[in-house]
């Protein structure tokens, strides 16, 4: 419905219609020598083509330049701290570069990843289901409305999600946290420290609450990508499956989902990238903790982005250098995640066709 094919086609047609008189004014009569005439303008456009090509190449390479500059800057600013801490930067969980103490990402990094994983754990199934509903099951009118709403949700600033999560969601969510701890406490993820008991006060500011709020931001992005891919499932195979007597679910299972596998992975990875780097909402929710633990419902969590946001203003030069090093770690991890994602997407036959 909303795919860009039809408008773009109209546009090219109009362009050709406009361009035609210009090229053909001189040789209006020579109707059948069109092939040759068409070749000449192509050759004449060679210069334009070359310029265009140069501009395109330049803008393409700017991406790499910017990325290299960011990485280089982080490394340059963080190298002092990395020298100071050595391998301790990876093995140390404390963070006290300003007071002459040790510092490292051994606690912050696992927390960052666990918030992102909680977010994806919730976001991916919901996104897949939403995208399938929009493309396969929703009536046409509802489809337009839903698509617009999802795109709208993707445009809401993360601060809004964060504030809503802090003031509305968190006080309600902790009752669920408490239920999980009371009933599923034997699972390490839902266990809480016996010293503190299971009063409601131990559950806010946890990985779980932060993860749920981040998942709200990730869902629209994942859904958008997946919907786009599912919508491009080849109609031929789709109709073929129908013709063979397949049900709608059969079509989804055997055509849409396999075809959209790359889209599902790509969308999830895009979401993971956003979840890893989410700053404001996480900063508002979490109570920074510097000892890694299994429990996700208990108070205390962390994230590299939030750490930088919180400590930046009052950090000494060593402290800022250490924060830059942490930023570098986040940068590298995001690169690895995205590279892995794109390689997975490229490897799947159908995914490569979708050009995610």
């Amino acid at each position, binding site marked *: 419905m909303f795919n860009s094919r039809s408008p773009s086609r109209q546009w090219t047609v109009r362009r050709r219609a406009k361009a035609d008189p210009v090229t053909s004014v001189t040789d209006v009569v020579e109707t059948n020598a069109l092939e040759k005439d068409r070749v000449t303008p192509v050759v004449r456009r060679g210069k334009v083509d070359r310029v265009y090509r140069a501009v395109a190449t330049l803008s393409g390479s700017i991406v790499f330049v910017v990325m290299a500059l960011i990485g280089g800057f982080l490394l340059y600013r963080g190298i002092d701290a990395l020298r100071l801490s050595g391998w301790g930067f990876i093995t140390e969980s*404390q963070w*006290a570069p300003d007071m*002459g*103490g040790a510092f490292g990402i051994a606690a912050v990094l696992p927390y960052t990843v666990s918030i992102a994983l909680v977010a994806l754990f919730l976001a991916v199934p919901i996104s897949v289901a939403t995208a399938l509903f929009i493309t396969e099951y929703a009536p046409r009118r509802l489809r337009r*409305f839903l698509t617009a709403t999802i795109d709208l949700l993707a445009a809401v600033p993360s601060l809004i999600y964060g504030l809503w999560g802090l003031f509305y969601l968190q006080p309600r969510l902790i009752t669920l946290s408490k239920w999980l701890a009371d009933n599923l406490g034997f699972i390490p993820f839902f266990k809480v420290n016996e010293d503190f008991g299971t009063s*409601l*006060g131990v559950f806010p500011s946890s990985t779980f609450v932060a993860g749920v709020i981040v998942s709200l931001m990730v869902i629209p992005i994942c859904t958008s990508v997946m919907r786009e891919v599912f919508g491009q499932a080849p109609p031929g195979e789709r109709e073929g499956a129908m013709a063979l007597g397949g049900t709608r679910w059969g079509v989804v299972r055997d055509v849409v989902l396999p075809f959209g596998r790359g889209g599902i992975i790509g969308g999830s990875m895009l979401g993971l990238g956003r979840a890893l780097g989410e700053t404001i909402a996480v900063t508002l929710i979490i*109570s920074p903790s510097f000892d890694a633990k299994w429990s996700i419902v208990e108070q205390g969590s962390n994230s590299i982005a939030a750490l930088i946001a919180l400590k930046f*203003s*009052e950090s000494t030069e060593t402290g800022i250098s250490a924060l830059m090093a942490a930023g570098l770690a986040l940068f590298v991890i995001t690169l690895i995640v995205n590279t892995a994602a794109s390689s997975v997407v490229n490897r799947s036959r159908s995914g490569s066709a979708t050009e995610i």
Partner: protein
Amino acid sequence: MNNIARWMVAAAISTTLVASTGASPASASDPVDGAGSTWSQIAVDQWRADVARQGLVVNYQGVGSTAGRVAYYQAQVDFAVSEIPFQSAQYDRQGNLLADETQLAASRPYAYLPIVAGGTAFMYNLKANGQRITDLKLSPTTVAKIFTGQINMWNDPAIAADNPQRVMPATRIKPVIRSDGSGTTAQFTAFMADETTSDWNVLCQRANLGSSCPATSLYPDYPNSGFAAQQFSDGVANFVAAQYNDGAITYVEYGYAKERGFPVASVKNASGSYTQPTAVNVSVALQGARINNDGTQVLGGVYRNSDPRTYPISSYSYMIVPTTEASPFNASKGQSLSEYIFYFLCAGQQKAEQLGYAPLPKNLVQFGFEAVARIPGAVAAPAIDSCANPTITGGFLVPKATTAPATTAAPASGSSGGNSGTPGGTSTGTTVPGATTVPGATTVPGTIDETGTVEDPSAPGDVVDAAGGEAVIATPGVAMATSVEIDTEGSGTSPIIYVLITILLLGIAVGPPVVAGRLRPSVKQ
């Protein structure tokens, strides 16, 4: 961009003034740039706006105290504002030198002067038998033990000893600290490092920072401390005020607790009284401030001030000003800067209480004047008695009562020291220039005598502080009163309005694409 625009506007205004009147007292002056503390920023910005009307341009960026000090010694700004002075050499655990701010700053000679004063309040959320406790009293040692993780339960003997008037509940204490760098943290940790050193060192050791550590803007935490950390004063105050956080306590500016209608602990001072962190009690305490040869504050005299009205955990933030014309400073800027300083040390302090701070007392204004004299190009200081500071013009600080009843008494009457936040009420409309904005002061419950103590009609004991709490909350008036009203009204507002707004917003956002889709000639594909 913004700075340039502001400068141009100011310049335009001043030139038109010169053109129209022919004689302008303040010639177009050089703009002065500063950076630093966010804690002081509300006051600094208010004063900037005030002097801008006289054509004096002062720019300020609240980037944080530490960043402000760095910007000063890197010669990026003319002045800095910070809660703590330049830090002496710091070493990591291997003994490597990390940074030596005092040495770095030596290249650009400076002087310290007091700028904004305030007290650190302890806001708490505690219920006993379903009733909120509002008369909590704490001694400084107990406070330090709570915030270093050495006392974990509200019915701990140390807390019970401070509160003989009631039985404390067996609730777990949840200390709430700031997760971001903050001036409030710096002031509170400076107090602990100075006054309750052994307790503070326990935290240093637990947080693996060595056997002792200096005051810091970033509160140290350690594994399994049971501390909760939140961002910003608003964040910690909201967190403590949350219904599910029974047993939580945090250190925050007094105003944030008042806004939410939550009580703050009365803290025991050197004379044995338990006082509230009102502007008056903070100003009284700061009368005991002394200063080192290098201009840094010696707050021992504040923390241990023997005046019974003293709120012990009081301090002030510094302005760091250059004493040479080293770039980017010059004499012309020095003139502007000194005019700004004289404004905020004197008339500007009238606004301190409204803004949630306390006015600087006379002794600190005097320190400020002495520091200004060292700024190149500074104008001459006004006579100290002509300074329009409310602590000097009188009326704000009632002279210390010679026969203050609170000095001899135990906790119960000590609470009357807490009530002494009200004497501003006696002077309403006469000497306090900001009086028009504190009409609420006249409606203070209880009668106030000239000594600043409240003759509370109710019986001594736990009731006294409840009444005292009311008095204190009602006094400074408008801002707080309105916010409470909003709170109570908020719950009553009809949800239909919210639903309508939501539908409207959704319509605006979703409508256009849907309508556009309909208008477009349908493509059959």
